């Protein structure tokens, strides 16, 4: 439906790629139709993608929907065995992958491989089916979440969830013809899917950067006259470093009107540096989960500037908030028993709205009877309704019966001029149940002792928030989409504890 509208409204606009050789909306429409036919004729149950982002992404995504089949983008960085297991779970399937991938995994007869060139070229010859599958209950996307324990769960997003998200957050053809968005998140990240859909519906050209690299990103913004981009925090921090390394000769990024960021906690120094380096760029902080079809809350450009310029601590701290819920979304903060909490009280973030799925394949639906999805993210609302996210509830440190959010400790540590990155983790402790270990990465060439760092926290937060141990590391473990791997860190730091509790 969304693609059909776009093709009817602005079919000649370039949808993906460069202005001179990109694919138009109409071409995407036709190729998706041909792909839909190929997918249907293969008698499969799923359309998978084990590949970097490319113009084949929208064709796979829309082609699968057209054929009434779920689109299942898999993480192409997984090892052979992990991919085999996931392919087994979604078989029979047709799967977009390059020949290198076909050679490294054990392809069974239940997986039909198709390459990028196949999908983009050969199937041009096939005829389009005329019937769009229009059932809102159809599964549009299956996304395997990066689960921390056991088998990965497959989040189910139905057509009605994605359509609600787009209709609730994007205005049709609202982009000017000169606008172009740079996408550097992979297809298996919900933001990669959401960006493909929302930019197409807005009529905005998309330029894809398959594997993020700060220099390539900056070069593309300049050569393609990019006007907006979505990044995860680690990407922005590398872009900031790259721009700083260009020194006073830097050409800046004059075409870039907007950067949206999300997918993890943005260190305050990074966003403040970015605001200073790019004074003409609007910043949007978006908060959302796979299970909520991407964004549910956002902090807009004006709110960024207001917070950045304010002397009022209540207003200034909003720069680390995720703003206010979308008009089509409700947010509520609940305690362990599910009772609603007042503003400024910390609890679990619950969300409700048409775009919220909260469903995993083969599992009971996780929505409450009233339609609320408990996110497992901790957070609170301020008096004005700004939402602050403190982190996964599973990551909360329980020290002497007190719940301590790692986020607040990390934020203070990151304000120290020598600290480049920091993570607070609970490690087992006989006396307190858990104690606080902080892993700290220093900027190259700087030195600071443990006591100074502990004092920096003690001066700002309650004394039970002071890290008991500080460990200096060269880097923290992140996955490729910028999520801190706390579990890995915890395993490495567990020796700091006395091992008495688990």
């Amino acid at each position, binding site marked *: 439906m969304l693609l059909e509208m776009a093709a*009817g*409204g602005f079919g000649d606009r370039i949808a993906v790629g460069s202005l001179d050789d990109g694919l138009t909306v109409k071409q995407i429409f036709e190729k998706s139709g041909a792909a839909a036919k190929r997918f249907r004729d293969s008698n499969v149950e799923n359309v998978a993608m084990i590949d970097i982002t490319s113009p084949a992404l929208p064709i796979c995504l829309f082609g699968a929907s057209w054929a009434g089949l779920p689109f299942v983008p898999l993480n192409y960085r997984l090892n052979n065995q992990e991919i085999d297991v996931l392919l087994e779970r979604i078989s029979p399937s047709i799967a977009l992958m390059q020949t290198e991938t076909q050679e490294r995994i054990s392809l069974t007869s239940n997986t039909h491989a198709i390459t990028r060139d196949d999908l983009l070229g050969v199937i041009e010859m096939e005829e389009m089916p005329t019937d769009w599958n229009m059932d809102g209950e159809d599964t549009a996307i299956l996304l395997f979440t990066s689960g921390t324990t056991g088998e990965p769960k497959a989040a189910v997003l139905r057509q009605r969830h994605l*359509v609600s998200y787009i209709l609730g*957050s*994007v205005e*049709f053809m*609202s982009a000017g013809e000169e606008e172009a968005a740079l996408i550097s998140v992979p297809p298996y990240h919900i933001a990669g899917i959401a960006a493909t859909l*929302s930019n197409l519906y807005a009529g905005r050209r998309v330029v894809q950067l398959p594997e993020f690299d700060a220099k390539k990103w900056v070069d593309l913004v300049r050569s393609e006259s990019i006007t907006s981009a979505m990044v995860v925090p680690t990407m922005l921090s590398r872009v900031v470093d790259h721009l700083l390394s260009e020194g006073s000769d830097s050409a800046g990024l004059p075409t870039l009107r907007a950067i949206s960021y999300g997918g993890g906690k943005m260190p305050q120094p990074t966003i403040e540096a970015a605001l200073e380096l790019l004074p003409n760029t609007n910043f*949007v902080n978006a908060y959302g989960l796979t299970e909520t079809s991407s964004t549910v809350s*956002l902090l807009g450009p004006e709110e960024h500037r207001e917070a950045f310029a304010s002397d009022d601590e209540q207003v200034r701290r909003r720069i680390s908030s995720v703003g206010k819920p979308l008009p089509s979304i409700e947010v509520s903060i609940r305690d362990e028993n599910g009772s609603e909490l007042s503003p400024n009280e910390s609890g679990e973030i619950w969300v409700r709205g048409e775009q919220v799925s909260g469903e995993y394949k083969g599992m009971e639906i996780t929505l409450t009877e009233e339609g609320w999805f408990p996110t497992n993210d901790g957070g609170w609302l301020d008096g004005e309704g700004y939402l602050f996210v403190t982190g996964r509830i599973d990551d909360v440190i329980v020290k002497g019966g007190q719940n301590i959010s790692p986020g607040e400790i990390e934020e203070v540590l990151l304000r120290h001029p020598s600290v480049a990155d920091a993570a607070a983790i609970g490690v087992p402790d006989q006396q307190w149940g858990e104690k606080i270990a902080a892993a700290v990465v220093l900027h190259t060439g700087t030195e600071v002792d443990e006591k100074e760092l502990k004092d920096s926290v003690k001066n700002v937060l309650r004394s039970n928030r002071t890290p008991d141990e500080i460990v200096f590391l060269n880097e923290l473990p992140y996955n490729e989409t910028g999520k801190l791997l706390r579990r890995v860190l915890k395993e490495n730091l567990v020796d700091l504890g006395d091992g008495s509790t688990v």
Partner: protein
Amino acid sequence: MALLKAGGRWSSSVCDTEVIVVKGPENEVSLTCGGVEMVEAGGDPVSGELDDSGDGTQLGKRYVDEEDTIEVLCTKPGSGSLGVDGNALELKDAKPLPASD
């Protein structure tokens, strides 16, 4: 008269217009296009004469009633204008959110 459920798709009986319901009222209403009752997508058109005196419908635009109890989105444009229970639906002012992805 019909119950307009969010996500429901309706076609004009007398022009090319198609809409999807974004927000529906609680009670049954009569949704018309070009003065003639619309039908659920795929259903048989109702016979009637097209009144094309209005502005027609525009692709991708949202239409609302005065009380803001109903909102539909035009997924295919046509020459008939939309109405509910005899009152014309109005073009809704777009207030786009900043792009977040």
